[in-house]
C-alpha cells in the first residue's frame, strides 16, 4: 500500500505494473483498492487490468506485464494492490518443461533464493518478507547494511521465517554511489548449501543443453582466425576480438531455457547477436573448438556478491582452465575493441565458474591505476599576439585506452570530428580544429593514438610586452562519462555512501609550450600536491629552452572509494583544476 502525499506523487501512480515472464512465471492482480483521504473506498475492477508486452530494449525475450489503471489519486489518498505470482522471472533451463505447473519449477530443482532490499526511493512505514519452507529444508540467510527484525516459527506447513523493517527513510542518492544492493539494508537467502554446488549446477545445465557444441562452419572460422598464431594467449585474444566485435549485443529469445542457459554457439554464430551469456557462449564454443578447456562463469558487474550462494549475478563471462584449477578469465561483452581480455572495469569483481568439480566464489584482483593511464601530450606555441597553435596527442592504457577507442568506434562516423571539436572547445570557445587523426581503433595490437592539430586565435591575453595564459594541457579537454566518471564523485559534497567508479585511473598531462622569441616565463601556475588515500595530484611548470614545460599527474587509486575517503578525491581534483585555472605570465 502506498500513500500519496503530493500532486507530484499522485502523478507517478497513473498505473501500476506487475512484470512476469510467460515462459516461466505467472502473475495475477487479485485486487486494487483506492482509499480516499476523505474516507471513501474505491475498488479498481480487476477486469480493467491489461495484459501487455513489456517495453524492451536490447533484450527481446517476450516478457509481459499486468498493467493496472489507477483512478486519479489526490494527496492523502492511498492505493493498495495485491498480486499473486508463481514461478520465476528468468527461465533457467533448456529442459523439457511440461504443461501446467511444471514450467514454474525453478532451475535448481528444490532450491530457492532471493535478495530483498528494505529501502527504496520512497520512505517505507513497514515492509515485511515472509517465507515458508518445508521443515527438512534448511536455508542460508544473512542481513547486510543494517538491521532487520526477524522471527522463525513453525506451522503444519513448515518453518515460517519473517524479516521486517519499520520507518525506513527514502534513500538520498549520491553521484556515483555504489549499487543499491551495496547500500541499502539487504536480506540475502538461499537454500543452496554452498558455491561449489551452484558451480556444478551451472556447469551441468549448460552441458546438458549442449550449448557449446560446434559445427564445421565454426571450426573453419576458428582455424581462420587463429591461422599463423603460435601462442595460446595470442590465439585466444584473437578469438575474443572476433567474438567481441562480430556478435552484436541484442538479445532474441530461444524460448524455453532463456536465462542461465547460454544460447547454443551454433545459434549465436548464425544470428551474430545475443546478450552477454550468448556472447560468452560463442567464445566458449570457439575456445573449445580450438582445444581449450573452457567453462562459463557467472559474475556481478557493478556490485558485490555476498558470500552466500544466492543468485546475485547479472553477467556472464568465460573461464579458461590453463592448468588444473587455474583459470584465465575472458569477457567478450566488455572487451570489444580492447587490448584487454578482462576489463579493468571489472577489477575487483566476484565470479563463480561453472565447472565439473565445483568452484568457490572468487574475486578478480584490483587494477593498479597505472594500468588505466590517460596521457595527454601537448606541443604548442604561442605567438606574440596571443594566438596559439598546437597538437594534442592522446593515448591510454587498458580501460582508458579502450574508452578512447570506443569514443571513436562507437560514435557515428560523421560525429567523430564534432566530438573532437567539442573536446577542443574546453580549451577555448574560439578553438579551431585544423586536423584530426587516429590510429585504427579496431587494431588492438597497435597502441591507439588520437592526434588533434588546432589553433586558437587570441588564446593568450597579450600586452605590449607580455603574455598571460593558461597551460593548454591542463584544461582537461578529454572528458566523457566513461573516461572521467570520477569528476562527478569528486565534486559532490558530503557523502554517506561509498563511490563506485568504472576503474582506477592515472591521468598524465604533459605540456611543451614554446614562447615567442625573446620571451621568458615570469611565473607559472603553482601546484598544491595532494596525496590522499583515494587520490593524489602533483604538478609542476618550468621554463626550459624557450618553452614552458609542465607535467601534471592525477591518480584515482581505488575503484571503490569509501565514503570517508571522498574528501581526498575532492582535494586532489580541486588541486588539479586550480593548476589548470592558474594564469602563467611571460614577458620579453
Amino acid at each position: 500500500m502506498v500513500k500519496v502525499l503530493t500532486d507530484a506523487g499522485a502523478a507517478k501512480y497513473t498505473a501500476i505494473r506487475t512484470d512476469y515472464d510467460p515462459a516461466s512465471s505467472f502473475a495475477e492482480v487479485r485486487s486494487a483498492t483506492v482509499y480516499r483521504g476523505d474516507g471513501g473506498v474505491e475498488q479498481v475492477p480487476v477486469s480493467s487490468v491489461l495484459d501487455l508486452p513489456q517495453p524492451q530494449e536490447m533484450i527481446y525475450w517476450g516478457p509481459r506485464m499486468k498493467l493496472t489503471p489507477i483512478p486519479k489519486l489526490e494527496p492523502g489518498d492511498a492505493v493498495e494492490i495485491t498480486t499473486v505470482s508463481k514461478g520465476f522471472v528468468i527461465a533457467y533451463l533448456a529442459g523439457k518443461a511440461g504443461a501446467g505447473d511444471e514450467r514454474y519449477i525453478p532451475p535448481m530443482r528444490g532450491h530457492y533464493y532471493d535478495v530483498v532490499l528494505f529501502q527504496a526511493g520512497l520512505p517505507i512505514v513497514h515492509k515485511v518478507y515472509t517465507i515458508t519452507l518445508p521443515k527438512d529444508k534448511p536455508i542460508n540467510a544473512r542481513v547486510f547494511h543494517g538491521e532487520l527484525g526477524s522471527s522463525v516459527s513453525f506451522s503444519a506447513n513448515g518453518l515460517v521465517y519473517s524479516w521486517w523493517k519499520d520507518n525506513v527513510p527514502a534513500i538520498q542518492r549520491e553521484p556515483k554511489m555504489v549499487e543499491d544492493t551495496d547500500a541499502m539494508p539487504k536480506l540475502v537467502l538461499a537454500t543452496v548449501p554452498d558455491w561449489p554446488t551452484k558451480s556444478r549446477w551451472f556447469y551441468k545445465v549448460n552441458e546438458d543443453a549442449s550449448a557449446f557444441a560446434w559445427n564445421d562452419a565454426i571450426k573453419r572460422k576458428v582455424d581462420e582466425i587463429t591461422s599463423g598464431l603460435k601462442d595460446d594467449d595470442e590465439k585466444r585474444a584473437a578469438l575474443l576480438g572476433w567474438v567481441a566485435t562480430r556478435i552484436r549485443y541484442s538479445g532474441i529469445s530461444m524460448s524455453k531455457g532463456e536465462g542461465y542457459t547460454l544460447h547454443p554457439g551454433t545459434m549465436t554464430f548464425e544470428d551474430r547477436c545475443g546478450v552477454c551469456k550468448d556472447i560468452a557462449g560463442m567464445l566458449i564454443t570457439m575456445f573449445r573448438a580450438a582445444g581449450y578447456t573452457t567453462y562459463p562463469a557467472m559474475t556481478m558487474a557493478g556490485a558485490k556478491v555476498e558470500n552466500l550462494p544466492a543468485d546475485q549475478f547479472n553477467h556472464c563471462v568465460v573461464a579458461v582452465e590453463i592448468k588444473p584449477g587455474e583459470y584465465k578469465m575472458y569477457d567478450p561483452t566488455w572487451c570489444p575493441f580492447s587490448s584487454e581480455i578482462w576489463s579493468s572495469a571489472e577489477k575487483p569483481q566476484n565470479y563463480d565458474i561453472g565447472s565439473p568439480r565445483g568452484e568457490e566464489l572468487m574475486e578478480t584482483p584490483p587494477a593498479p591505476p597505472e594500468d588505466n593511464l590517460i596521457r595527454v601530450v601537448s606541443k604548442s606555441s604561442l605567438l606574440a599576439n596571443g594566438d596559439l597553435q598546437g597538437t594534442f596527442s592522446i593515448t591510454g592504457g587498458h580501460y582508458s585506452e579502450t574508452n578512447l577507442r570506443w569514443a571513436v568506434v562507437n560514435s557515428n562516423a560523421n560525429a567523430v570530428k564534432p566530438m573532437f571539436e567539442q573536446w577542443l572547445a574546453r580549451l577555448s570557445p574560439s578553438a579551431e580544429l585544423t586536423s584530426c587523426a587516429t590510429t585504427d581503433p579496431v587494431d588492438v595490437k597497435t597502441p591507439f593514438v588520437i592526434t588533434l592539430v588546432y589553433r586558437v586565435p587570441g588564446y593568450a591575453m597579450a600586452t605590449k610586452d607580455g603574455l598571460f595564459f593558461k597551460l593548454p594541457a591542463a584544461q582537461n579537454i578529454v572528458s566523457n562519462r566513461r573516461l572521467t566518471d570520477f569528476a562527478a564523485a569528486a565534486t559532490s559534497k558530503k557523502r554517506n555512501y561509498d563511490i563506485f567508479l568504472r576503474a582506477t585511473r592515472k591521468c598524465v598531462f604533459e605540456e611543451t609550450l614554446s614562447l615567442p622569441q625573446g620571451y621568458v616565463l615570469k611565473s607559472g601556475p603553482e601546484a598544491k600536491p595532494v596525496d590522499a588515500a583515494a587520490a593524489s595530484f602533483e604538478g609542476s611548470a618550468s621554463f626550459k629552452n624557450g618553452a614552458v614545460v609542465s607535467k601534471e599527474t592525477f591518480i584515482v587509486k581505488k575503484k571503490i572509494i569509501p565514503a570517508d575517503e571522498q574528501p581526498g578525491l575532492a582535494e586532489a581534483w580541486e588541486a588539479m583544476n586550480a593548476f589548470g585555472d592558474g594564469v602563467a605570465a611571460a614577458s620579453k
Partner: protein
Amino acid sequence: MCKLLVSLLCAALWGTASFAAGIAPKYASSPGLKEYPSSDVLVLSESREYTVEPDGRVTERYFKAEKILTYQGMDLVGDPLVPFNSETQEIRDYALTTYTPDGRVVGAKANSFNEMTPFELEKAPAYTSWREMVMTKVGLDLGAVVESRYVISDKRPWRKFFEKAVPFVYALPCLERIVKVTVPNDVALHWAFLNGDVKPAITSEGGATTYAWAVKSADGVDMAEGNRDEWLARSRLVFTTCPGWREANAAVGELTDGAVASGSEEINKKTRELVAGAATIFNKVQCIHDYVAEDIPTVEWPLGLFGFTPRPAAEVFHTGYGHALDKAVLLCAMLKQIGVEAAPAACALGIPGLGDVDAVPCLAQLDEILVHADVDGKPLWLDPCAKLSERSQRDFQDYKGLPLTVGYDKLHTMPAAGKANRLEANLRATVTKALAFAGEGTFVFSGGYTTFYEAQGSQDALKTAAEEWLGAVLPGADVVSTSVNLMAPEQVSVTVAFKGEAKEAGKGIHVLKTGLLHGSLLAHPAQIFRQKRELPLLLPFAGHEETRVSFELPAGLKPAYVPGRLSLKETAGSVNEAWSLDGNQLTMTTEADVPSRFVKPEDYPGFRRLCSSFAAPSANTILFTK
C-alpha cells in the same frame, strides 16, 4: 518480384543459412565505405507505398535495403522499431534477410520479431493498443546488405483523412528513396514537396491514381546538429486527402469542443482547490496551468499518430495522464471553471527556410499544441506540457497554428512580442585595493528576452533570477539586493546591488572576468562547438544587446591586462566591444546585433565567430598583478 522470391526462399530456410562465394550478385556492385567514408550505413533503396482504399482503409508497404559499412552501423540499424495500432491496424508479411560478403544468406526467424508496448506509453493504459514491432536483424557483418519489409494495413476504416509528412533526408545517405501514394480517382490528394523541387510521376489504373516521388542519392545529415525545428529544414513530402483547413478544423474542432465541455465534479473540485488563495485571475490561471503542465504526466507520442483525437476532459483528469491535446483539453476545461475562455491550437514553426506549413492542409505537420487563454482581455499563450517559466509566448514567435475549436478555416500567425527584442545592462562598481568590488546595475529585458515568467511571483524567484543575470555578466559576484523597476510580460527592469572580488589565479595574478548577458543570443547556442553545420541554426528570435560595465579603480591600481577593441561584422550579425581606461574609470561597452533568427549553414561559421570572440578569455578578462 525477384527480390520477393529470394526473400521468401530465404524466409523458408529458417535456421539454415545458405552459403555461396561472395555477396548476392544483385548487391555485388553496390558502393561501400570507400565511396561513403563518413557513413556507417548506406541505404541502397527505400520505398513506402500507401494505398487508400475506397472505404478509407490504408495499407502501407515498406521495403528497405541497406548496406552495413561500420561496426557502429550494425548497432545503428540493428533493431528498428515499427509502430502500429493493434486495435485498428495489422502488421504482417514482415521479413528480414541478410546477405553477407562471405555468401551467407540469413533469414530472420520468428524470434526476431517482438511486439512491445512503447516505453512512452507504459504508464498510459488508454493508449496501450499502440505497439512497436522490434525487428532484430540477424547475421549482420561488415559489408552485409539487409533487406527489411513489412505491411501495415488498417483493419477497418477509421480515418477522417489520410495524411503524412515524410522527410526525404535522414541521418543515413540513401541511393534511392521512393514514396508512392495511391488514392481512388474520386479522392483528391493535396501535396507539397517542401525544401526541394521534386514532382511526382502520376499514373492511373483500375480506378485509382498513384503519385510517386523519387529522390536519388540523398546525402545523410548528422541529426545531432539540430533540434526538431531545425530538422524541418530537410526536404520533406507533405500530403493529405483533407481538402482544406476548414475541413481539418471541423474534423478535430468538434471533437475538441466536446472534450472540453465534458467537465466533471472531480475537475471542478480540483480547480477550486488549486485557485484557493490566488489573488488575481492571472495567478489563478498560473496555478491551474502549473498543475496541468507538471502534475498530469505527458504521453510523449506523436499527435499525428493519435489522429489529433482528444479524450474527454473528465477522462483525462480521472486517469491522470494525457498527450498534449488531452492536457490542453483538461486545461481549457479547468480554465472555463474560473471564467477564463480558452481554446487549443495545433501549431508549428512557420518561417521561411523551414518549408511553408500553410502549403497543404495537413494537420499532421502541426504537431505542437498550445492553448490560447483570454486573461483580463489580453491573450495568454500556454503550453499544456510546460510551465510558463519554461515556455511562454516569447518561445512561440513565428508559430503558425490552426485553432482546434469549430469555426476556423485558416492558419493564424502568433502575434509578435509587444516590445522590440532588446537586452540591456548597465553596471557600476567600485574596486578596493584588496581587489574586492561592490556596486549596482540595472538589467532590462524586452520583447523576446523578457524574463517575466522566471522572475515574477516571489522574492525567491526574483533572487534566483537575479543571481543568474549577475553571474552571467560578472561571474562569481554575489547579489546583495534587488529592486524591481518594471515587471511586465513584455519587459522586465530590475536593479541589482552586488559585491565580489577579483580571484587570485597564479602567483600574484588576480582575475576579474566579465561575460555575455543572461539570455544573450550569442551565449552558448546548442552545438556551437561545431565548426560547420549542414542544417540551419535557429535562434529563439532576432535581437539587439548592449552592455556597459564600469569599474572605479583605487588610486594607483592599473590593470596588467585589459582586453582590446573587438569589432566583427558577419552576415549573421555583428559585435562590438570596447574597453577604456579613463583616469581610474575602467569601462567596458559591448553591442551585439543579430538581425535574423535563421542562420543559414553557409553563414554559421561567421555566427560562430561572433559567439567565440565574445567568449574568448582575451575578450572578457581583466588581470591585476600584485
